[in-house]
């Protein structure tokens, strides 16, 4: 599905963050991921914080005079089916987390450019690109 408006991009972003939160929440309480439980719990909390900040920034920054139509931006390119399963091994969970962070880093970078007309929010996207990169680095250090 093509995301053609600011609110469509935002809604999809919040959906992706909800998936992130769910993944890390579940992974953090798994015995198999003992070595990364604390990291996963922290990443779940970071995801919740990002969601709150995005909603607030969108509400406070949306300006009818600055809205622009968006083209060439498709959900399918970023949709993640990354879900945590109790049957996952520690290595599998880490691999899934790595994949999630790579995809989300790409999403924030490219989505941020698409909504650059609402700078108050696109700056957050830029910050979150870096945050996801940092998360990826933390995960990779455990591999």
């Amino acid at each position: 599905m093509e995301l053609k408006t600011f609110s469509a991009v935002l809604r999809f972003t919040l959906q992706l963050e909800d998936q992130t939160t769910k993944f890390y929440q579940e992974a953090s309480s798994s015995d198999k991921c003992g070595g990364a439980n604390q990291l996963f719990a922290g990443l779940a909390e970071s995801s919740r914080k990002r969601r709150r900040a995005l909603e607030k920034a969108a509400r406070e920054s949306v300006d009818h005079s600055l809205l622009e139509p968006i083209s060439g931006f498709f959900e399918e390119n970023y949709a993640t089916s990354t879900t945590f399963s109790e049957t996952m091994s520690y290595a599998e969970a880490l691999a899934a987390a790595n994949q999630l962070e790579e995809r989300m880093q790409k999403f924030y970078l490219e989505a941020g450019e698409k909504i650059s007309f609402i700078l108050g929010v696109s700056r957050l996207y830029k910050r979150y690109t870096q945050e996801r990169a940092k998360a990826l680095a933390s995960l990779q250090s455990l591999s």
Partner: protein
Amino acid sequence: MGQSTKLADTNVAVIRNYVNGEWVPSRSTRTLDVVNPATTEVLARVPISTREEVQEAVQYAKQAYEDWRETPPLTRARYLFTLKNIMEEHFEEVSRILVQEHGKTIDEGRGEVRRAIECIEHAAGTPTLMMGYGLENIAPELDEDCLLQPLGVFCCLPPSNFPAMIPFWFIPYAIACGNTYIVKPSSEVPLSMNKMFELIHEADFPPGVMNLVNGTREVADVLLESKDIKGVSFVGSTPVAKYVYSKATSTGKRAQCQGGAKNFLVVMPDALLDKIVPTIMNSVYGCTGQRCLAGANVVGVGDVYEPLKQKLVEAAKAIKVGYGMDESVQMGPLRSKQAKEKVLSYVETGLEEGAKLILDGRNLKVDGYEDGYFVGPTIFDNVGPKMKIGSEEIFGPVMCLMRAKDLDEALDMIHQNPHGNAASIFTQNGKWAREFKHRVQAGNVGINIGIAAPVAYFPFSGWKDSFFGDLHGQGFDAINFFTERKVVISRWF
């Protein structure tokens, strides 16, 4: 949907007035339908209030003024802080009402509510904004002070295109300065202000400080004729702005009347087309072209014309039109059946005048909303500034393309037009931008900006036939409009 009384034989509610702190059903038996322009569903009925009801509201506001003006400015500001917080809680609800009664997209609705809240935030700074000034010893032991004081009851007659935002260009400033207020919303779109007054009621302002009376021009005339109203704010078409200004000032009132527009977007040869085309799309087609700041005439200067035209047509074709509750929709319907007919009539006129219709939005049908008042993005090529479509306000999704050989010619075209609401230039050249900014006869100017909408702490300007009055809405102008100067010279023995 808001405070209302159900009619005996129907499920459609009649909305109420809000007078002296209470919701009051109108005594009038005359009502008009409030229609969703996408679905054509009747959402509610709005009463045409009686003369007596309007006069009663004025008297309540006048009585409330005596206490309200004695309330310290900070206390008055605290009510605005409370109102702001309540509006934040109901942000999404008001945004959705706007989509339903006006037809704008959900993003446009949210953007409108945000601007309304910003006016409240700015007006809450009135303890500082309303400060006067003084000087000791203008002569030995004589001091002189200038105070800003409120005047009494003010009113506004807002338009149908921004029913939630435009009243707030005026209300919070008037109230914060110590005046009391009456709003008469557009009878086409009264529901968002109806909701706002529910929130105002929740904020617990003293009775009579803010009042709402519904109706049409007849109600406006009662307000304009009232000796107890000190000032009027109006936004709408130029002919009606002239009428309101004339009538208000002839009865001794202050008046600020924003009229219509025909805004030019000048694209210079060095403009970055890929950056500016989406901006121009928002300017011309945002809110379905129903903004007084909307771009109408796009002037391509020199050899930018052909590549610009190609990109504009391509981008306009891609705009998704539909019901604004769907987040993917980029443009909604026109406000009413009459608005749609007016736009279609202008398209016919354009064809008769010899302009070339290169994108025809007339026969657009939206699946599921076949009866909605939709017109798709429309573009005319080879438009002359003296053509009707090039000089009169269409107030719809119609772009007129014009050619100019240079910036001077573009400015001449702008200046020939009787309106002077807004104008924009798109360029990377500082010299052209500065030249444009300095010379253009328009009140709201954009440089690489398609909708030059001033934020709350700046006045919403407008020149020539786009504005009648001296002081604009918002900003310091608002403080000056809603106060009078009292100069005091004092001496003590």
